[in-house]
């Protein structure tokens, strides 16, 4: 049984121009036991909305919010809010957001914030607070006196690590990381990645790692999902997706990574990501696809299996429906 099963998750925002299809019927699963699933996508692909949809913290203007999310066999999207808050949030699933710079309350000390949820869970006795906090801090490689600091006294990297420590406080089964290193410089990035790898190997922590940085994903993730315009375009194991991409978008994406050696100028994906309020008819990538056919402009392809556990959303990979 998979740890997390997502079935046809939909999150559309309401706007003056019609519903914004941020997450448009997404399905995947995270296998558990220390598996890291990477979700790669550009800006506007809907990956951050996916996190919100999973955590049930959508913004105010929802148009559609449906689908199923099954955690350890139990559906969690449709249970009462209070139950979700108490049982699932942070206890089962924890999140580390992108801009941890502002993710902390500026007037409260780090230690208190890290322990906050635990305290509310009554999972900790006052005397043990310091001890527990220090332990969590050690896990992410932070020193003891971080406990007493205020957020503004820490660097970006330290804050991000603290965010990870905070997320681990209740021993969640799944850790979602939304662009955890985008705002950091490369050396710090490496440190964070090491921390994550450590957690993955030592604690067997399952993760959902969302990023636009393919290299990072390749470093950490076991399986990868490629997202575009609110949909999954390809998913499979890291080797499958990165070494043998089946979907034109994935291929374009990968070929746009500049090579260290070689004279060729970098390739880039032409055009711009589609407007989520008005996605193109048919295959959403077709306006930018170098391999498009007539059918691509009319009909949106489903996910076709191309290999064992490898899927791609492209008419090229499967039989189009009968004409007529």
């Amino acid at each position, binding site marked *: 049984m998979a740890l997390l099963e997502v079935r046809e998750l939909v999150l559309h925002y309401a706007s003056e121009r019609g519903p914004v299809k941020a997450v448009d019927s997404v399905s995947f699963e995270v296998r558990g036991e220390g598996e890291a699933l990477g979700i790669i996508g550009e800006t506007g692909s809907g990956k951050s909305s996916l996190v919100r949809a999973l*955590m049930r*913290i959508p913004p105010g203007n929802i148009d559609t919010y449906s689908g199923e999310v099954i955690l350890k066999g139990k559906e969690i999207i449709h249970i009462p809010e209070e139950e979700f*808050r*108490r049982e*699932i*949030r*942070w*206890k089962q699933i*924890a*999140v580390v*957001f992108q*801009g941890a710079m*502002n*993710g*902390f*309350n*500026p*007037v*409260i000390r780090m230690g208190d914030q890290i322990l*906050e*949820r635990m305290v*509310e869970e009554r999972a900790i006795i006052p005397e043990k607070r310091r001890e527990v906090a220090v332990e969590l801090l050690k896990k992410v490689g932070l020193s003891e006196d971080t406990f007493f600091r*205020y957020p*503004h006294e820490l660097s970006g990297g330290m804050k991000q690590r603290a965010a990870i420590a*905070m997320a681990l406080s209740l021993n969640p089964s799944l850790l979602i990381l939304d662009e955890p290193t985008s705002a950091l410089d490369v050396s710090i990035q490496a440190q964070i990645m090491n921390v994550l790898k450590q957690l993955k190997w030592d604690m067997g922590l399952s993760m959902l790692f969302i990023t636009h940085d393919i290299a990072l994903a390749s470093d950490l993730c076991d399986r990868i999902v490629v997202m575009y315009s609110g949909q999954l375009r390809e998913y499979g194991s890291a080797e499958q997706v990165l070494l043998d991409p089946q979907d034109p978008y994935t291929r374009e994406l990968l070929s746009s990574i500049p090579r260290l050696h070689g004279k060729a100028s970098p390739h880039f994906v032409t055009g711009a990501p589609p407007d989520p309020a008005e996605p193109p008819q048919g295959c959403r990538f077709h306006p930018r696809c170098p391999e498009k056919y007539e059918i691509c402009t009319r009909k949106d392809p489903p996910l076709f299996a191309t290999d064992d556990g490898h899927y791609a959303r492209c008419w090229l990979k499967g039989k189009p429906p009968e004409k007529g």
Partner: protein
Amino acid sequence: MSLLRTLLVRGLTMLGVLLAVQILVVVCLGATGYSDRMLQAVISEQLRGMRSSLAQTIRDPARLEEALEAHREELESSYGLDRPWFARMPGMVARVFKLDLGEAHTLRSSDGSNRVADIVLERIPATMLLLTSAMVITAGIGILIGVKLATHPGSPLDRVVSGFSAVSFALPTWWVGILLILIFSFRLGILPTGGMYSVPPPDGGFARFMDLLYHALLPIFTLVLASLGPYVYVIRTMTLNIAQAEHVTIARAKGLSERTVSGRHILRVAAPPIVTSLILGLAGTLGGSILVETVFNWRGMGRLYYEAIAGTPDEMVIVALTFIYTLIYILARMVLEVLYVILDPRVRYG
């Protein structure tokens, strides 16, 4: 201790402000010649009045002039006009800094003392009653409503209150006071028209105090009404901004109860800017209280200030009162600044 140092710096700045204000007052009164001319004019006016009454008993024009000259000299020396302003006023400022507030020329306390300290001391409780009540009530209501509105931005209630805030900001305090008197004292007859006590005043300490409170209701209400609006709006907006901050989303994602989120992650973070807006509104409230006291015939310091300026200018009282008002402002500001520093760790200089 960075905390202490911050506060020390602030404290010294405030002291500098106090000194600067005093110098300004003295220069305004003296260098412009306003004080001298004003007092000369008042003396001349008094003498003109005396001419007709002296004429009743002194029938020799020459002796009449003599008598008037004697009166004039007396008046000039008593008003201090026998010395130029820069000789007499710095002395006043120096005295005031030593907390010796001097003597008033024409104004007196109700038991006859002309020492400014006595006059002012007598009036301070009256002003403090209005000021502190109004400020506390305004702050309290402001926070309650402001935060409430921030949780439902754009709602009909939000729009109504925001509209009211704009109106309240524009309303002159004295006008609101008069309007309220019209409504509550004359139309409805449930509150007194002004003054501090009734006719005849009740005997006994407690009854007298209750009578005082009864008379204080409308003035306080006026002050609150006039300053509440912008305050509510500022709090609402600040809280709203903070409510949309990232750490609030994360706090929710952490699975914290809504109460914890609004209490610790919104309000607690909004507290410093709220304190700032209190500081900014302070000067306005002080000034407004002067007008309210005048409209409601409330014998407090504001009324005294008005009388000392608008009537016969009483230099010592003006200098002393400016000092006191600035002092009040500074002290209140220091309290708020300390509060701010305690609330917001980010401003503690390393």
